[in-house]
């Protein structure tokens, strides 16, 4: 099952890249592959046994005797977190392909093939149980991102890609060194085996954490983030903030913390302090951004730091909240960036100064934007509220002041998200809004409505997800 989820998009990518199909058929084929992946993911969800441990396991020798008496295994399986991350990936890729197809991208065969390769790599890294295999997924994930950002991005894409490449490569090379060291000294790359025999030089933890914290990103390692989110095409920005950032948090939860529990616990105050600073810092900076993407970019920074707080609270409430928040924030930021993309496609800008009035006579637009904004600000009662509540409870159990300070983020989130929504939707039409700009068309609704429905379903029944995450 897991292997099928990895191979399907890869095979799809090959066909899309090689088959000399016209543009429309290429887009359709890519979309079909992505939807098939969603269906496959749904089948996995239905068959998943809550509380049944790792499932859909494949465990085979891949590279025997690595020359270091440690063999590399093709070992993939899914626990609750992997499952929901894979589902998030599938949904995010499908929605992104749909948006890209609507807008039309140059050289569609290369574009969609790269997106599908990205999907395959993400699924691999979310399911890999072998460090080398995980690293392979991690690096393959980066390659399509570099190309998608550097070739199809906006005007400042070269500088943005350069920063992104340099920053993330530094992190992942540190992780590579740590993986090699672990393999040589422990004689295995298997996650489970390494957890059973904790290995404790402090630098190992930080080598892993560096890669993950840059990707998430943890404050102050976010310098690549604003330009990457601004210069990418909207669907790539959506994937970066919705799915790829979750790979960083996933790495912390699955590898960095369990492999080095003692170091992680000893140094938790460093990470908690940075994450708290990042939460408040990101929220404050988001409040002064002049453009719609900037607000979502910095709010994404704040939210990811909140997730890090949940992870390093070292208790079950914090970790459950963090993992559930990964799902929630993934869907919310996908929706937010894709919706901004739809606005940009009509107005050519995302600057607040020249936007506004989207709600005037455009009920669909205002409704989907409103829901995205409300979930992003964690309106009480929403699924994001549930996950934030659990994270903050976890933080409060770790230290009362930490929880109380992080709770301030809720007020700040209300401030910047309402500003975002009002600037886009309220008062008169902005100068860049074409006269009589139409409401969302059925094709666009078909992209937005499923994401909204997912959010509503998560809100009505968070237990369905949370029960599988614990």
């Amino acid at each position, binding site marked *: 099952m897991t292997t099928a989820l990895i191979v399907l998009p890869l095979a799809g990518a090959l066909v899309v890249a090689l088959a000399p199909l016209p543009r429309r058929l290429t887009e359709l084929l890519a979309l079909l592959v992505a939807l098939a992946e969603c269906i496959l993911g749904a089948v996995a969800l239905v068959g998943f046994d809550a509380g049944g441990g790792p499932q859909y396991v494949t465990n085979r020798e891949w590279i025997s005797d690595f020359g270091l008496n440690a063999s590399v295994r093709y070992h993939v399986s899914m626990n609750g977190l992997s499952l929901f991350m894979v589902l998030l990936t599938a949904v995010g890729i499908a929605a992104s392909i749909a948006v890209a197809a609507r807008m039309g991208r140059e050289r569609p065969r290369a574009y969609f093939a790269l997106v599908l390769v990205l999907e395959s790599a993400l699924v691999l890294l979310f399911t890999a149980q072998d460090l080398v295999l995980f690293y392979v997924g991690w690096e393959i994930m980066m390659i399509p991102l570099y190309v998608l950002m550097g070739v199809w991005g906006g005007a400042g894409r070269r500088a943005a890609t350069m920063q992104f490449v340099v920053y993330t490569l530094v992190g992942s090379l540190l992780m590579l060194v740590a993986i090699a060291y672990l393999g040589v000294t422990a004689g295995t790359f298997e996650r489970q085996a390494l957890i059973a025999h904790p290995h404790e030089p402090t630098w190992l933890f930080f080598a892993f954490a560096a890669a993950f914290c840059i990707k998430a990103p943890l404050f102050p390692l976010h310098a690549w983030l604003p330009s990457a989110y601004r210069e990418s095409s909207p669907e790539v920005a959506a994937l970066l903030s919705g799915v790829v950032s979750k790979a960083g948090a996933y790495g912390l939860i699955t590898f960095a913390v369990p492999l080095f529990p003692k170091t992680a616990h000893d140094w938790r105050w460093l990470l908690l302090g940075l994450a708290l600073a990042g939460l408040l810092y990101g929220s*404050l900076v988001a409040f002064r951004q002049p453009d719609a993407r900037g607000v979502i970019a910095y709010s994404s920074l704040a939210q990811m730091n909140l997730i890090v707080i949940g992870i390093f609270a070292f208790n079950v409430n914090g970790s459950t909240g963090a993992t559930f928040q990964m799902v929630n924030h993934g869907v919310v930021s996908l929706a937010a960036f894709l919706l901004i993309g739809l606005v940009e496609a009509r107005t050519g800008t995302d600057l607040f100064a020249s936007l506004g009035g989207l709600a005037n006579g455009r009920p669909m637009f205002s409704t989907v934007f409103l829901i995205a904004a409300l979930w992003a600000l964690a309106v009480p009662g929403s699924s994001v509220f549930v996950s934030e509540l659990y994270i903050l409870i976890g933080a409060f159990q770790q230290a009362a002041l930490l929880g109380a300070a992080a709770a301030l983020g809720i007020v700040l989130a209300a401030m910047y998200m309402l500003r975002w929504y009002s600037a886009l939707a309220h008062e008169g039409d902005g100068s860049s809004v074409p006269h009589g700009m139409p409401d969302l068309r059925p094709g666009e609704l078909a992209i937005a409505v499923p994401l909204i429905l997912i959010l509503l379903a998560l809100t009505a029944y968070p237990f369905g997800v949370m029960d599988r995450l614990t």
Partner: protein
Amino acid sequence: MSSLEALSWVCLFAPLAGVVVLTLAGSRLSRQAAAWAGTAFSLASFLAAVYVAYKLHHEPKFHHHGAREHVFTLYTWATSGSFRVPFDVLIDPLSVVEMLIVSGVGTLIVAYSIGYMHGDPKERRFFVYLDLFLFSMLLLVMSANFALLLAGWGLVGLSSYLLIGFWHERKAPVDAAKKAFVMNAIGDVGIAIAIFFMVRDLGTVEFQRVFDQAGSRWPQGSSTANWIAFLLLLGAVAKSAQIPLHTWLPDAMEGPTPVSALIHAATMVTAGVYLVARTHVLFENAPDIQSLVALIGVATLLMAGVIALVQTDIKRIIAYSTMSQIGYMFAAVGIGAYSAGMFLLLAHAFFKALLFLGAGIVIHALSGEQDVRRMGGLQPALRKTATLMWIGTIGLIGFWPLAKDAILASAYAKGGTTAMIVFVAGLVGAFFTGVYATRLMRLTFYGPRSTYADVHLHDTSHGEAPWTMFWTVTALAAGTIVVGFLAIGFGTTDELASWLRFVAPTVESSVSDEVLTTALGWGAGLAGAALVFWAYSRPERLATVKRPLRAGAVVAENRFYWDTAYRWIAYLPASAIASGLYRYVERWIVWGSVSVLTYVVRGFSRAATDAQNGVVRLYATAFAAGAAVLAAYFLTKASL
């Protein structure tokens, strides 16, 4: 599932069903049909609430804690393995009273809106939001745990945001809506942190379990007990527009009038009082904080009463009067007179909704004018409306229902410093109430008709308003009179107090106390009313009254400078910090660091690029040199 349980769920979910149906139907439903459908769903909720109240009333008389108390669980909403939040509702006398107010007054106001919003292009959306509000408010008052209460608490804030900013083409409503939401978010955080304490120390947020364990886990007056009560109070203060988080309520009058009546008078803003009554165990566990509740109430009732004296916008006068009345309720629950506070809450829901909707008819008749200085002399044209609004005014001043007098009697009977402050301030407040309530009526309906009104007044010869508007206001007037009989006092059976005895007790007072306090309260109110009619009868009298108060009037007209203070203390510094962080820390330090890194990498790559000059023989030389170095290394190593 018993019929009680089933109908409880119907009561809660009927408005939500309305939201779903109206949203999905969209423009397939005509505007008029959508309005009626929205009303039908809230009516269904009200009928279910009536049934629940009837069933509960016919359960065996209760003599102990825990009787007439039902917790119904639908499913587990959220879990982390160790800490679960069930989706459950608590049906007990207190929540039933609230359910009846919310769905009953709610239905009347939704029905009123059919006429009021007729012809608005976003009419359907308005009814979706109203139904969303009713669902949220019912969730707030019915939930059996703090997490769900907080969900309802936030969702009413959201509905309030949506409805205040309903006419979002203009800037003022949008700003008012944002202000309301952010100030309420501060309160939400307060309740959230209180929840953190409960989960940390008790591992549960269920009302009953928290109340049962609170006393033993947190000793009375301990710092944790104080913190929890204080944080809950923070939520209550924000939601109920009490000092210091009150400045959003007057601005919220930018919303349509039915919204002001429903959310910002009858139901949502009184949620803070409900919260204190519901969690009175926690407040009694922190006596200092409970006194603080009473003192905040006193401060607000006096300040808002003074500001109401000088307002000129008819809706803002009523808004400040609402703040002042909620101040009374806070004072009541702050001295432990919970059922007296709930009685004023109940009566206030009727008479204040009545006043708002009556004002709505006046505004409607004057094509949207809200300034009382441009009204005057409307009584002949709006005869029935004036009569109905007089009923509301009598309720507001406190002649009937005897709600304010019940609070004064409780304060008098209770004794002690706090209660005495409440008593004295309550009498002063009653005088202010008499003045501003009568001034409103005097300026609107009597005296010479203004030139503006001459020009703009609609022809009212065949009906003062659409029948849906008129009929609902009449029903509210009837309700105001009828609820008065629930708690007459003077030794008669206090129906409300005995109904609420175990969930929200009161301070017993003797008949002689009640005669005294009622006489004083009526006297203060009458004095205020008489002063208004005396002063406004001749301009020179008015000038005589106003002259010595000029300095105070300036302070009151500037609303005691709260908004100015917030601007300088909170908004401007926060903006400056945010801008500063972005301009200096983000641009120079964070982005600078990555620029340095990029620069170093680029330097290396440039050096490497220069070597790739394409001269094959140079490559060969480099290759040979490398091989020679390696050979030299291995040879020396072998010889060693």
